[in-house]
């Protein structure tokens, strides 16, 4: 990457909202984005959920790049929504506006209210259809299947990062993300992680996978 390119990108303000359920690896994903951004010379801010919510609740993190000083994202102001679970992605739509790029894992983790029959989990096809109407660009696919194919069911976060990296929506090179995955994730899972990342990237590179405009 040339320096001029780098400098232009550094003033670009990008707000990325990540949401999922405890145990899905959202915090690692946001941290890796932050580390890659730091290595590329940005002043990233990554805000994380810790504490009570982690017992089976919703875990949200945000990554903010550019000239911004606020670590969190207000309703309607995310540029990218990276959703790790179908219902939670849909719930986080209030942080999106029509132009937000949404990358959604269609995998489902039923909340307790659904498991005990107090509430019904909405059909995923309906959630996806409604999302595709609500935002201009949506990439929805089962990241869990790809993670398992890659050899690690826990690599859903890597699949989603790969998809995000392939959109060119990030002011970061794909290589810079791969580099932090190589240095910052468990060496035992490195091959699976890199394969998962690659599989996510391939999904995003296929124009047929996108609903609405391709970013």
């Amino acid at each position, binding site marked *: 990457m040339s320096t001029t390119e780098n400098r232009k990108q550094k003033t670009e303000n990008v707000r990325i909202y990540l949401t999922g359920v405890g145990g899905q690896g959202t915090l690692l994903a946001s941290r890796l984005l932050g580390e890659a951004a730091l290595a590329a010379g940005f002043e990233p801010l*990554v805000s994380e959920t810790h504490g009570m919510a982690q*017992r089976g609740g919703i875990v949200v993190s945000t990554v903010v790049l550019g000239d911004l*000083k606020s670590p969190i994202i207000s309703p309607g*102001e995310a540029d990218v929504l990276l959703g790790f679970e179908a219902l939670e992605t849909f719930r986080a739509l209030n942080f999106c506006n029509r132009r937000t790029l949404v990358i959604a894992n269609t995998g489902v983790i039923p909340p307790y209210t659904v*498991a005990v*029959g107090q509430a019904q989990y909405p059909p995923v096809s309906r959630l996806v259809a409604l999302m595709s109407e609500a935002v201009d660009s949506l990439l929805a696919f089962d990241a869990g299947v790809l993670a398992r194919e890659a050899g690690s069911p826990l690599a859903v976060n890597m699949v989603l990062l790969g998809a995000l990296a392939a959109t060119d929506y990030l002011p970061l090179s794909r290589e810079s993300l791969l580099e932090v995955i190589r240095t910052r994730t468990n060496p035992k899972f490195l091959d699976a992680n890199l394969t998962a990342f690659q599989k996510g990237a391939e999904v995003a590179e296929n124009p047929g996978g996108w609903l609405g405009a391709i970013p």
Partner: protein
Amino acid sequence: MSELLADQPGERRLFLGNEAIVRGALEAGVRLAATYPGTPASEIGDRLYVVSRQTDLYFEYSTNEKVALEVAAGAAASGWRALCSMKHVGLNVAADALMTLGYVGVKAGMVIVSADDPSLFSSQNEQDNRYYAKLAGLPMLEPASPQEAKDMTRAAFELSEELGLPVMLRTTTRINHTRGAVTLGPLPSAPGKAGRFQKDPFNLVMVPAVARKAHARLVEKYDRAREQAEASRFNTITGEGPWGIAASGVAAAYVQDALLELGLKDKVTFLKLGFTHPLPAKLVGEFLARVEKVLVVEELEPFLEEHIKAVAQESGLTLPIHGKGRELFSRLYEYDPALVRGVVARYFGVPDEPGKALAPAGIFGQPLPDRPPNLCPGCPHRAMYYAVKIALQELGVEGIFPTDIGCYTLGLLPPLSMADFLICMGSSITTACGIARATGRKVVAFIGDSTFFHAGLTGLANAVHNNHDVLLIILDNGTTAMTGHQPHPGVTLTPPDYPGRPIDIAGVVKALGVEQSRVVNPFKYKESLAATKEAIAARGVRVLISQAPCHLYVQRIKGKKSKARFQVVDACGDCRHCLDYFGCPAMYVKPDAGVSQMFIDHDLCAGCAFCVQFCECIRPVKGSAR
């Protein structure tokens, strides 16, 4: 080696605000650190623990915040730089020491981190601890970013030594739990010296005659502290123009973004305050003299606003100064960038274009299913709650359940519904006494093992001494689970290499004079049910110690899951017993020909084998180890 010990000055690292605080303390040569865990401060202690295993730093998980503060104060009185960190409500527990510590003063730098929690992400209230600095007469710094958190921690040690006073570093969740670029400074090269306590009882023993003089000293120091605030690099005025904004903490970051996005960067005079107590009156006066109208942006209480208005009054200025109020800022909950931008735009009459947020429930056409947090599958607390529910039912009595703070507070939610009253840590056993005395009803109080040592001992002694009629169930899972599995005095599950000496809870209970006490294993249902029934039926102070380790922590330490698995093998019909009394998240229901059939999710099942003891339809899966 811990990343926080990297000796590469000038390098930038992505640190959590809490890690930045630790790094700042290490750069300042901290010798002793003490804490009691609590979100959002917990990672400060957890990182310090790791560092302490690799360096000569002394660190301890203290029994509670008062203990932590006093241990740190003793070290600081002996010439060791000391750090004490806690969540905001922890400072209430430590407040007795805090109020007089300023009288006694310190010989080496001492920093007290108070991590406030606007919006109550993991807390019982959202008190604004900046008033503690005012109440105790102590200097206070408020960082707005992880980098500032590091810089201010380091500076706070120096400030503390210059003034001979402990210094408060007041953060909020958004600073503690944000990662940002932090530039490393040098770590001290020389090894620390042994501490030395210089006897000086007529300045250090706070009897009235001494304390009267000491109070006068503290008041004098206030003026010196104010001069330091006037000159502090953490208080800056930038920009110019007749509109003024003053802000501190993360709210200052929101203001900076608002000015950027509203195109007001060059039109507003911005007073960014980081050294917020004592407030630099001269600097504030200078700021006020330059503007015609002021907006004060701070989360929670109008702490700065009141001070700034007082400065205006003293300077004879009558310009409008606003902060809290209708159409302006709320005293409730944390702010966000768009909220601050909106108020700034409205106050100064400039246009703002908020992002058009989508409305998920509106798009979906109905509310989305909630996802509340829940006790883990295999959690020992659930098993004990179940035994109490059934015991009461079989005895035909309705219990009242004062509870306490920890994972087990999640027992509040149905179907367990085992929590009726909670104020703060330790309030289970004490409020139980009052409730039982006033109502004459069966009162069953619940307290966790960490909470028992933190604030339960005195309450139990009181119950015994004053002949109360209560049953206390100590939920002993061997760790402080809710805040991230820290050790405590009764600990049985410890992090690697942990040097703390465990204290036997049953022995403590006995020594406090409890005559009816028993240890039960909650996963042995028959036994725990019989013991619970007996304890409920009896009178006087009774204690049951429910002893079984936190499942999640055991799994983490061992790094593998139990192989035993269970399945529902018969038709459930319309039984619903497990749904209505137990509520394990590994169980789920599927409507099957009109009736509901239960299933067990094998990925989630912890293999605790509790449900098989109350339901005949549940059996081990063939081939699973058990």
